[in-house]
């Protein structure tokens, strides 16, 4: 009970302070003869602006600084230059396997997931009966809490799990032992990909379906008039028209893949052989088991940020080649 009360007091106090700052910002601007409209607008965005400064801009700079220090919270940070980065790249045995796992996980689950989602969305965009019911159904896995999904799949992909039982005939044909997915370095990645596909393909389907529904019918009719078949319609109308939506899901997907966390916590992967997710390494160095290597963990955070930036810049650059924006002709 006390824990609730304490947070409620914090919450109300901060709310009052933010409200006061909004009012003061407005008044000060009016005194400075700023137009009322401008003064109101700037005052109203104060909650976000303050939040940006306190919870984004400052932490961004602070973590960059920490990444060059040795910092265990109890003693002040001590400058060590590039030592943290050097240790990640050359000493820590969990870095390269984990980088490989994280990147391979993104590189396989994203394209397969988008292809499946697009296929399914195209099926639903035809005049199928009960689109609403199918959509409700397919979206269901995305609603299930991520943690529940992971635990469910840990059970399904166990050595005696349902998937191995269902796939038993396949194993017999291939003359192989049923794999114990997550504990076998060769099967951990496919297992993680299967799990993530189940979790997200429904959400992406719904997003892509909305994009497909926006395609004007006359474009398809024009292709048909020119004698184009289903293939021509797909390449010349569907793909260009849905490419902005694909682009949006791809960008978000890249970021989400690099910062994958929960599967690595709930599934015990061996960080030095299979590798684990990079963010799990950040967490375990900074918070887990009495560790508080804040500087070392911050350095990995920055390495991940750079990876995300490089990948998104790459996606953005490539978008000129394949993303079609209406009203933009070059």
């Amino acid at each position, binding site marked *: 009970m006390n824990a609730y009360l304490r947070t409620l007091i914090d919450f109300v106090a901060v709310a009052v302070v933010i409200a006061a700052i909004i009012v003061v910002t407005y008044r000060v601007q009016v005194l400075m003869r700023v137009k009322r409209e401008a003064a109101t607008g700037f005052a109203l965005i104060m909650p*976000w602006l303050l939040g940006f400064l*306190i*919870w984004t801009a400052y932490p961004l700079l602070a973590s960059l600084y920490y990444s060059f220090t040795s910092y265990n919270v109890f003693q002040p940070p001590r400058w060590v230059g590039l030592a943290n980065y050097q240790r990640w790249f050359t000493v820590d045995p969990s870095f390269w396997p984990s980088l490989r796992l994280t990147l391979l996980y993104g590189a396989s689950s994203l394209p397969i997931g988008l292809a499946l989602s697009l296929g399914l969305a195209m099926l639903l965009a035809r005049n199928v009966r009960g689109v609403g019911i199918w959509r*409700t*159904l397919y979206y269901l896995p995305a609603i299930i*809490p991520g943690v529940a999904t992971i635990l469910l*799949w840990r*059970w399904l992909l166990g050595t005696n799990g349902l998937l191995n039982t269902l796939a038993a005939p396949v194993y017999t044909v291939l003359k192989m032992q049923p794999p114990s997915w997550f504990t076998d370095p060769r099967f951990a990645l496919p297992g993680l990909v299967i799990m993530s596909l189940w979790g997200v393909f429904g959400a992406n389907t719904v997003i892509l379906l909305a994009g497909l529904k926006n395609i004007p019918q006359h474009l398809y009719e024009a292709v048909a008039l020119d004698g184009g078949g289903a293939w021509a319609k797909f390449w010349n109308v569907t793909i260009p028209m849905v490419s902005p939506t694909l682009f949006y899901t791809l960008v978000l997907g890249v970021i989400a893949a690099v910062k994958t966390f929960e599967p690595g916590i709930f599934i015990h992967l061996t960080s030095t052989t299979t590798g684990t997710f990079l963010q799990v390494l950040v967490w375990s160095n*900074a*918070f887990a088991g009495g560790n508080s290597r804040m500087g070392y963990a911050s350095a990995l955070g920055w390495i991940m940020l750079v990876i995300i930036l490089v990948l998104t810049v790459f996606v953005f650059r490539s978008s000129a080649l394949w993303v079609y924006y209406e009203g933009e002709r070059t």
Partner: protein
Amino acid sequence: MRQPVAPAAQPAPAYGSVHEEQILTQIVTYILLVFGALVVLVPLFWMLSTSLKSADELFLVPPPLLPAIPRWANYIDVWVIQPFTGYFLNTIFITLLAMAGEIISCAIVAYGFARFRFRGRDALFGVLLATMMLPNIITLIPTFLIWRGLGRIDTYSPLTVGALFAWGPAYIFLLRQFFMTIPREIEEAAVMDGANTPQIFVRVMLPLVKPAILAIAVLSFTGNWNNFQGPLIYINTPAKYPVILGLYAFSESLSKEAPKWNYMMAMTVIMSLPIVILYFLAQRYFIEGLTVGSVKG
């Protein structure tokens, strides 16, 4: 039934084959859709079925599809193993408080960005959109250190108070899109009636963007309900755990020899059920929140 008489130029069989082809594609479409539905439903069925099995049935080969006798007592046992009543109260407290903070602050900020011209507005909005791409790992450690400095570790404040600073640039973006579709005449009329900005915002604008508010309400509810990393880092005392940390604690205690997957699955059902119910009640808003960013943006 009279068959239409085919004109001489186009012989009747051509019509027939086109028709057949259509039926065929329809059949294939439905087969694929049903297959997709099975992929979704079989794991969920297995979750429910496992949660009702007795410990002896867990590792039978082949596993029985359904328990011989559904063991509802699993759900009671689970409640004894982990004090879920307390965990639920904690989760509800965190979720509702963070949700309230998020909705109110995001609505105010979105209104400011949507309706008023001021210097630097577009640049600031660009910064806001850019923060959407920033992974939270990078801010995690300094944020933790701020809360630690304030003596707020092992309290709910880090999980809720930050929401007042318009957490969630996506929500601001979504609400701004809605505010921008409202004709200016409505506000101008309210000004003529002598209403001031807070009055216009609360009495005129908010009711008009109700669908968007509900959309971010369901998104925010699920987001906070399912938040794992936050509680994992900030909450240490078991009595203060939200449901999700109860699941984590139990999953870590699963023994290698005889893991109690029936209990584990019962817990995942308990954790998921409120969200699934919300989804079926407010489905429209889930879909709205999900699709608006991609299509309108």
